[in-house]
């Protein structure tokens, strides 16, 4: 008996140890990024963990660097890139909402011939290698004048945000008992009022969470703005590369830019914990 208790306790300690080890691995890079962002350029190469923290990197990327040498890339650009990310990500989510909410409703509530095929075509956007579409678009956009514009980038980002919203929302609509609608229909309400007044309020929390997740994915994309945009629509993800290709001394600036560029996602992640699993799995796992 005694040994059994000891074994059990040992087991628990080992399990906790393994778990903590994994989380050290998972969280250390983020911690280290914050650390680097607080280092002055003088201390960058000389110290690992003990140093005098400074906000000069944040100051430099947000308001410009008084000590900057000529030819340093993407520095004062950062606030602009950040705004570009905000505009493009929110624009994409907005378009996806306008288009995707009705689509999700139709795919959840109606039976029609092309239904499953359509739903899976939208899903295949999510899995398709983006380059099949981006390479031809890089030619088409230049011809149409959409290259390096917000409209062009927002349009192509539908590849990321639209399937997510359609599939997650469809699963939320399907969760609502049809009885509620039946009752309203018997009372003589037209379908669009039922949709607007009854269904939409019921899915609102899921809708908000899915939109926020779509926002994060749009924010995090790299290939679309890299290929289909240039200076006008440059986002934080594309500009982050610029700090590394420049002189070594700007690692701490890059870290500061990364911290700011990762901040919105962290807030989103913490605020939609309950809905994350369904969002991440496109409605396949209800979580």
């Amino acid at each position, binding site marked *: 008996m005694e040994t059994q208790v000891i074994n059990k306790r040992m087991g628990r300690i080992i399990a906790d140890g*393994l*778990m*903590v080890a*994994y*989380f050290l691995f*998972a*969280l250390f*890079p*983020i911690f*280290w990024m914050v650390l680097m962002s607080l280092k002055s350029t003088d201390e*960058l*190469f000389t110290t*690992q963990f003990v140093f005098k923290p400074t906000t000069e990197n944040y100051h430099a990327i947000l308001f410009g660097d008084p000590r900057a040498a000529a030819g340093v890339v993407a520095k004062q650009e950062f606030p602009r890139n950040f705004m570009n990310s905000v505009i493009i990500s929110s624009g994409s989510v907005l378009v996806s909402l*306008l*288009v995707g909410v*009705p*689509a999700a*409703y*139709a*795919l959840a*509530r*109606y*039976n*029609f011939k092309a239904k499953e095929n*359509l739903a*899976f075509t939208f899903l295949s956007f999510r899995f*398709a*290698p983006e*380059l099949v*579409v981006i*390479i*031809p678009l890089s*030619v088409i956009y230049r011809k149409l004048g959409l290259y390096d514009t917000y409209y062009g980038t927002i349009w192509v980002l*539908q590849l990321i945000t*639209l399937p997510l919203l359609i599939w997650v929302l469809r699963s939320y*609509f*399907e*969760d609502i*008992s*049809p009885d509620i*609608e039946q009752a309203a229909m018997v009372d003589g309400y037209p*379908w669009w009022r039922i949709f607007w007044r009854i269904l939409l309020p019921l899915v609102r929390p899921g809708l908000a969470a899915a939109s926020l997740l779509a926002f994060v994915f749009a*924010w*995090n994309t*790299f290939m679309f703005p890299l290929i289909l945009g240039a200076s006008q629509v440059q986002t*934080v*993800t594309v500009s*982050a*590369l610029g*700090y590394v290709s420049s002189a070594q001394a700007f690692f701490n600036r890059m*870290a500061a830019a*990364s911290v700011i*560029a*990762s901040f919105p996602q962290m807030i989103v*992640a*913490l605020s939609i*914990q309950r809905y994350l699993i369904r969002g*991440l799995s496109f409605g396949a*796992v209800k*979580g």
Partner: protein
Amino acid sequence: MTGNLASVHASTLQKQEVRARLPFLVRARPYLILLPALLILVGILIPFGMGVYYSLTTYALNRPGSLDNFVGLRNYDRMIHSSGFINSTTITLKYALLATIVELLLGLGIAMLLNRDTLLAKILQTTLIFPMMVAPVIGTLIWKLMMQPSVGILNPMLNAVGLPSLQWASVPETALFSVVLVDVWMFTPFAALILLAGLRSFPREPFEAARVDGASLWFTFRNLTLPMLTPYIIIVVLFRFMDSLKQFDIIFAMTEGGPGNTLMTYQLTAYRTSIQYLRLAQGLPYAVTLFFVIYITSQYLVKFWGKAQRRAAGYSS
């Protein structure tokens, strides 16, 4: 379950419509509601079709008139016989398989550890999602910095436990390991979260029955946990395998496909040939081939998922 509900409801909707002699607007209603989405769909499918067409010509941006030169499958033939083809195929598959397998196994371990309702597990669980929320490019840059010889931290850490320094992504021997490491760091949380949701959805009775009967942990895992977890495992494989087959951001931010062409996967090759060298028709076969591989594999996995879900439902009822 919910799917059935929806179809039952939909069929009642339709029956009512039959009674009303199906006016055109009612029959067309789902399509009308879907119209805006269909417009976007068309807007995506047109460039896709053009991409497939371009791959059948000699289209190159620096050669005028090359678009009109239709050559059938010649670009595909040239791709298969090109010197880099075998390397690109192996590296694409190696990357995807390695990343998926490690993430699945590690994720399963983490999910099982988090499934013990201790305070520590609960606290750690809220931070699980963080690596996945950082933009892949930025996450990769952080790792690149950690691997960097002058300011980096990984080599000092290795040295501290008596291991020699590594050159990480800058030499062919460890390049694949380095990028897969970043992929594993970034996406193991996805696997863990999905599998944890699966573990939490299990009914208690069969596990209690197994415990009362004195079944070993391994027996319970193999005969109860694993079969019931299969649909969740397939979801993880579906998302992770498809995504790592087409992984671009991590490899691009780490080495742009180098050193040499060590990490030139299909996606990287397509990007380099079509976008950087402007030879659209030569790069597109890689992207189009990858598209069909992914399309067929994902269709198969989705079907398999449906089956596994029905089978797992048998266990829990």
